[in-house]
């Protein structure tokens, strides 16, 4: 038994054959998207068939990771054991046109502005996995 208090750590994503490329991208530090190879519609979470045209032809595409903040909230109750209290959730609008639910990090609630530019980054989970998070975009 170690004396150190174990840090709160996210459980690893389960993953499946459909979403393996997405989680593998997170481990590489790249946000991946799935797109229908016939009609071009984005879909998330990844799945085998396009809900619009029923095509099973699909593309796995590297996304820019750039987004803007659409909305956010600070959930307080109920506390969830896999999250440090004070975490923020965010709806982000990706540059490629999709919207995604994630966490907003490295910013105090007072400094948050709707529409602010964000960028993706990744945090390690248990068992060597990684999940995508967003933070204010660094000026480049």
């Amino acid at each position: 038994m170690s004396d150190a208090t174990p840090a709160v750590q996210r459980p690893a994503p389960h993953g499946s054959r459909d979403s393996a490329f997405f989680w593998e991208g997170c481990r590489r530090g790249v946000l991946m998207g799935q797109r229908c190879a016939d009609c071009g519609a984005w879909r998330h979470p990844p799945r085998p068939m396009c809900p619009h045209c029923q095509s099973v032809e699909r593309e796995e595409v590297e996304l820019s990771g750039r987004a803007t903040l659409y909305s956010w909230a600070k959930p307080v109750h109920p506390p969830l054991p896999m999250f440090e209290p004070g975490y923020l959730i965010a709806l982000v609008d990706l540059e490629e046109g999709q919207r995604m639910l994630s966490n907003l990090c490295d910013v105090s609630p007072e400094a948050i502005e709707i529409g602010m530019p964000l960028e993706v980054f990744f945090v390690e989970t248990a068992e060597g996995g990684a999940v995508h998070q967003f933070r204010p975009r660094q000026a480049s």
Partner: protein
Amino acid sequence: MASNGIRDRVAIVGMGCTAFGEHWDKSTADMLVESAGDAYRSAQVDPEQVDAYWLGTMGSGLSGLVLSEALKIQYKPVTHVENFCATGSEALRNACYAVACGAYDLVMAIGVEKLKDSGFSGLVVGSPAHDGARADITAPAIFSMLVPAYCKKYGVDEETLKDVISRIAWKNHANGAKNPKAQFRNEVPLEMIKASPSIAGMLGLFDCSGVADGSAAAIVCRAEDAHKYTDTPLFVKALSFVAGPSEGNKRQDYDFTTFTEVVASAEDAYKQAGITNPREEISMAEVHDCFTPTELVLLEDLGFSARGEGWKDVLDGRFDLDGPQPINPDGGLKSFGHPIGASGLRMMYEMWLQFRGEAGERQLAAPKLGLTHNLGGGPGSCVSFVSVVGK
């Protein structure tokens, strides 16, 4: 798309409802026996006369056996239905259609939920396992996003909107205080509501509905038979149910100031009932106030207030018990409590009492048409039910 409706073809002729709250001393079966027994007595029928049953529960059991075992139903059809928090309304809708089509003469819709001893605070949805790529969010967090979206779209500052949603909580608590079956039967001062601790975003404790145990039941027959059972039946004018494509969290054109599913089901219900001006024609409504900003948005989605004007109508007292269009006269989910599978039938129970003049301290003068609205899911991803009922 055809949605022809069954206007005035079926009637509710008996109802029962347990008190909602923390029933540590009652099982799911006990609550079913209580609400069904009250409904049988209300319609003055023997259980043997009921031909078929629709049971609504989201998490308190699977299959029709939950009901048939509890009531010792003898070899009759019992259909278990589930549609998130609109489960009770879905049970009623299907029961009404079965009567309208002539398959049965007398049926029961009954809803139940046992939440308080589930071991977790709040409403827990046992979603089928997925691979983790679909992010989940707590209900208060996703509903809290209605607030900044509404403020931004209509130029209302957040302090004013906090007053608006607090007033909704204040109203529903005041109504619930007059309801002997409500979970919370106390008026709460506005200042206490505004000062309550945060649950998510701008939602405080008093902006969230009560998590409760409870059950409610209705007995339904064809309209022409209704007076065999009661002098004051409640006639069904419209029943609408829609499920949306669940794209709100994934598409950039959804703006969190409306439930598109509610707009669609309201439009359908009003067409079935022949209503063109819901603000004037609907005397009272029970709406799905799971969180206070939900009620605000619903007022506009249901056409009780013009877009961007609902917040002013709330502050003006339009929807108070003594206002021109009372909303949630029984206290709503906020104060009556929200046992998921029972809530839709609980809303109808208030219509039943009001139209029969049995609502006690909450009684409204001569209601003409009543509406119930029941939501399942959250902004961007939900199912919606709207009914219109009357004499």
